[in-house]
């Protein structure tokens, strides 16, 4: 967790009116800038051409199964918490053609050639999003086999993170140790400060590349007072987070709760719609589909996002091994909060709260986790429950 700006580093100030320079330099450098913008009543992530496309003066209200845009009283560019989409869609696209093949007289000709992906600059990643990226890195590139499609996109990203001064009702990053400020993993980290007529960004440099880019933008060293203001905002944000999960014994408790009657109760509400896995920044599951044209002279193989809430996901030789809804919800929760640790050495949840906001049934994962913690199964009843 980080709710204090790094005291050992030089901090810088870029004024609001100089922010377009950041866009110019990144675009000149061949980056495709991806960041927050308004669409269809939400703040989504898309390719941006300039500062004007940022959600100026907007914030959001979030609750269980509820999201609404609300006008702010100021002209903040980053004054909201995380929206329905995650950055993973740019690194691990929902539909990705792995290869195409053409039938020729000499057999199949495989065309794996993909156009080189853009060189991304991610503007406005939150601390939880950066932690999620770390998890995805473990999944796709840290192991023995690397996912080339992910790696190609991941390698050259320039990351500009935003420390959260506004937190959503469903955020619980402080419990998961992932926010509200980013401790590392960025090239530049911004804290947006609006102080009367003054509107500026307190900037931490996280890499050499970050240093270079900052060098091209009009900036100056931050004063002690400005740093104090930034710290104040971050501390207030951390304190404003009311959702809490006690993670200490969580994996143990969950693993002992396999036969807990609560799963059935949750399943009575769960729609098995898969929304929670689609909006989760760390869910990485996919399926592979083969396609052919009618004549059988062209074929393609597609990798498509999948979810453990889908029956076919656990189809093994003649049937699904997780047919019941409770088995599927349990798989999801167990993976995020227990077995992920065995797999990757950390929680698979970064506390972004997206699955709470975007679950159409309003199921709150923290509420369920608290229930398991407060009502653990006694070892002796484990079998009979």
């Amino acid at each position, binding site marked *: 967790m980080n709710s204090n700006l790094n005291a050992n580093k030089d901090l810088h100030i870029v004024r609001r009116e100089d922010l377009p320079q950041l866009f110019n330099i990144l675009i000149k450098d061949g980056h495709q800038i991806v960041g927050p913008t308004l669409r269809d*009543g939400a703040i989504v992530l898309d390719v941006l051409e300039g500062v004007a496309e940022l959600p100026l003066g907007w914030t959001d209200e979030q609750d269980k*199964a509820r999201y609404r845009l609300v006008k702010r009283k100021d002209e903040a560019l980053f004054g909201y918490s995380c929206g329905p989409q995650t950055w993973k869609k740019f690194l691990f696209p929902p539909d990705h053609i792995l290869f195409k093949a053409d039938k020729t007289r000499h057999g199949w000709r495989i065309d794996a050639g993909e156009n080189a992906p853009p060189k991304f600059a991610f503007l406005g990643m939150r601390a939880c999003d950066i932690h999620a990226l770390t998890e995805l890195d473990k999944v796709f590139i840290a192991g023995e086999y690397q996912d080339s499609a992910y790696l190609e996109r991941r390698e050259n990203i320039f990351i500009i993170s935003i420390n959260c001064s506004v937190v959503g009702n469903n955020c619980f990053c402080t419990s998961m140790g992932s926010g509200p400020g980013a401790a590392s993993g960025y090239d530049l980290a911004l804290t947006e400060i609006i102080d009367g007529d003054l509107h500026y960004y307190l900037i931490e440099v996280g890499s050499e590349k970050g240093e270079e880019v900052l060098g091209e933008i009009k900036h100056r060293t931050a004063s002690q007072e400005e740093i104090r203001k930034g710290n104040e905002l971050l501390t207030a944000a951390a304190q404003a987070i009311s959702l809490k999960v006690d993670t200490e014994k969580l994996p143990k408790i969950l693993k002992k709760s396999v036969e807990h009657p609560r799963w059935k109760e949750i399943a*009575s509400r769960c729609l098995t719609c898969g*929304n929670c896995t689609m909006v989760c920044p760390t869910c990485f599951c996919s399926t592979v*589909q083969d396609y052919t044209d*009618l004549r059988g002279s062209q074929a393609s193989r597609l990798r498509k996002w999948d979810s453990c809430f889908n029956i076919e996901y656990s189809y093994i030789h003649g049937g699904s091994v997780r047919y019941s809804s409770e088995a599927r919800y349990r798989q999801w929760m167990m993976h995020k909060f227990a077995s992920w640790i065995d797999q990757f050495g950390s929680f698979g949840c970064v506390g972004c709260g997206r699955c709470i906001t975007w679950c*159409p049934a309003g199921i709150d994962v923290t509420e369920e986790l608290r229930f398991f913690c407060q009502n653990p199964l006694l070892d002796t009843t484990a079998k009979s429950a």
Partner: protein
Amino acid sequence: MAARKKPKLAVWKFASCDGCQLSLLDCEDELLEVAGVIEIANFPEASRAVKRGPYDISLVEGSITTPHDAMRIQKVRRMSKLLITIGACATGGGIQALRNFKDIKDFVSIVYARPDYIETLTKSTPIDDHVFVDCELRGCPINKYQLLEVISALLNDRKPNIPKYSVCMECKQKGNVCVMVSKGIPCLGPVTQVGCDALCPSYQRGCFGCFGPMETPNTISMSERFGELGIKADDIIRTYRTYNSYSESFRRESEAYER
């Protein structure tokens, strides 16, 4: 593949509006290609030339509403190696299954000058209530790309990619903002099978459920959510009673709110 005989295809119509079989004609660009790899042996909407059965593939549109059709579908089954139902009428009884919730005699006496000429069954039922169905394509109307996908898969001995999970999966993958969460618009997406490419939510409308119930529809929880959004019991009934009113889970749910 090249040496293989072209499979014979037949298209059959029962109680329906023809919209689904027209999706085959709507394939325009691909239609010639279809004709190149398949022998269209019996398709009255497209050609008067009819070849006798048996057929390798039968596409069946429409529901069973008359004693005559109940016999005819048995014949179609006997003549078909593979029987594929297409559209909400064939897979769920269709919009005409709304009569299943009322007494058919009341309708007949209002609609027809000579009710005694009308021979009809009391219910409109899906094809799989009568015969074994090998594969079904949902929708009102079906998605022509799903039709091409199934035909292409059959011709190439591969598994068709016709998922049975929720509309939400596709909706989110397209990057849509959920209309239910962001605007409070009731949406049947979570309990409806994917296949339309999340058409309605992509245009800021709630899903109407054209593709019928998804693989494990929790309609009870869905209706509770609608209730929280302020939808009254009568409207909840109507929500489930459109194109797939007689599909098991939608039927049960609407009936539960009738009591």
